[in-house]
């Protein structure tokens, strides 16, 4: 089976000499729902920008459904739909015109373009706004407009750079449902997001990128299994003055006086309560500290940062 996207040895040095990508390798299988995660400035938009011809690469290979962007650019582009991070439509044009014009750029005749625009504007709840100039849409509507525009030529690979930034919870959920539906019908989807909950809910495979390097590229399942440690937050009946010592479980107090307990995978929670019982501490409620993926993510990025400083010091 061909991969929807293959990236090999991709590097990018911007005009000012900044090395945004330092050799990226990525493979995304056809039909996958893939997340590219990373902190601000990690190189996500740069990577996706190169795939969509918005950024010139410095070195490396990009193939979309087997079409090399150096030699078969137009075939690669026909298979690709893009939702960029920043709004990039003409603010004065009407919603319907924006979508049909985009179809025209792909060589789709107006009649067919109009039918396709109607289909996606309806699916994304923008049909009533079709004659509205884009500048008069709300932020969430603008995002959906960009999705409709990216789909109008029915690409096999859809790339979304933070599609749900600035979108309220309800709309976010409905966008998730929409994307899941697209994916079920066969569209390969790659997205970047800062909401790890989003990646956890939607994606099958995940790559973590930081400082222009891929730190991890694996299935979400494998990634979550790696998470060997989980932090629980316990609210106690009486506020504690100091963190109690629990046999085998590191503890600390958080800013609000709640008790944080670290539990290794396989350790089990029962023992935590036995220990607390022994100390006479009564627990009123309990929750996990953060989204699990988030915890893993933060740890990886922190480790990477520590390593980078070490290398810098080593070099000095």
């Amino acid at each position, binding site marked *: 089976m061909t991969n929807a996207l293959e990236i090999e040895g991709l590097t990018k040095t911007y005009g000012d000499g900044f090395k945004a990508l330092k050799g990226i390798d990525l493979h995304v299988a056809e039909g996958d729902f893939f997340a590219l995660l990373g902190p601000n400035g990690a190189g996500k938009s740069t990577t996706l920008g190169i795939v969509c011809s918005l950024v010139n690469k410095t070195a490396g290979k990009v193939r979309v459904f087997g079409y090399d962007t150096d030699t078969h650019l137009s075939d690669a*582009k026909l298979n690709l739909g893009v939702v960029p991070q920043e709004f*990039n439509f*003409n603010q004065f044009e009407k919603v319907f015109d924006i979508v049909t014009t985009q179809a*025209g750029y792909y*060589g*789709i*005749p107006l009649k067919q373009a109009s039918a396709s625009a109607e289909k996606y504007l309806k699916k994304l709840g923008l049909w009533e706004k079709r004659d509205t100039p884009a500048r008069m849409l709300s932020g969430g509507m603008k995002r959906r407009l960009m999705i409709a525009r990216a789909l109008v030529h029915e690409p096999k690979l859809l790339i979304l750079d933070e599609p749900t930034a600035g979108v309220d919870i309800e709309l976010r959920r409905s966008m998730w449902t929409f994307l899941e539906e697209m994916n079920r019908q066969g569209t390969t989807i790659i997205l970047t997001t800062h909401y790890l909950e989003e990646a956890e809910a939607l994606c099958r495979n995940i790559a973590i990128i930081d400082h222009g390097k891929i730190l991890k590229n694996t299935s979400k399942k494998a990634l979550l299994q790696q998470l060997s440690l989980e932090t629980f937050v316990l609210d106690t009946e009486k506020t504690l003055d100091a963190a109690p010592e629990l046999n085998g479980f590191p503890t600390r107090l958080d800013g609000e006086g709640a008790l944080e307990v670290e539990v290794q995978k396989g350790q089990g929670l029962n023992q935590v309560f036995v220990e607390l019982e022994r100390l006479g501490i009564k627990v009123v409620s309990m929750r996990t500290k953060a989204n699990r993926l988030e915890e893993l993510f933060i740890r990886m990025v922190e480790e990477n940062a520590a390593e980078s400083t070490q290398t810098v010091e080593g070099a000095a």
Partner: protein
Amino acid sequence: MTPQALFTAFSTIVVREIRRFTRIWAQTLLPPAVTMTLYFIIFGNLIGSRIGEMGGFEYMSFIVPGLIMMSVITSSYANVVSSFFSMKFQRSIEELLVSPVPNWVILAGYVTGGMARGLGIGLIVTLLSLAFTRLSIHNLPMMVLTVFLTSALFALGGFINAMLATKFDDISIVPTFVLTPLTYLGGVFYSIDLLPGFWQGVSMANPILYMVNGFRYGILGVSDVNPFVSLGMILVFISVLAFIALRMLERGKGIRH
């Protein structure tokens, strides 16, 4: 892309360009109509009657071809430079960059859009001039060819200007400091016979002089220069600018990081 698909992409760009300048007609179509009507009244009627003949024609008839050409030049240039620069500025140029439209089709689309406005204005100004004078046409093919090619040439110029521009000021420098002076000194209002020998020579280095005179030849049958020389010159300029514009698009200068 198949030839049909290429044509669809091309006409999509042209239609969008035409939609843009007709949507903002009060900024694009109205001003030249007003300005040129003032020129006709003041230079043609009021002052022109005192000037007498120029190049063997009454002054009004003499300046009409020049004024039509002047508005065609200005509008063709202005359309492409402002449309393409604002696409860059709003980043909606990315809509084209992600699509499979080849660069030459992008360029052809913008140039045709600029020509649509330039020639549209030319037509409006011609119709307005009929309220002041009678127009006879001496050589229709020469007239049509000159005005079409000149319009294409300045649309190309506007495109290159927009590619190079990084801020809004950059798109008014060339029109104000280059195009306007060259047009005024390009024989719109006078025949260079009136000038002393030295300044005649200098004027011959002004490309716009050739275009104005070529067009005037098509209408009146008089010209300061050989109209075929001016056609040839416009063609050479078009090839050079088209080559430069395509190279810039290929490199993505100012539009791709």
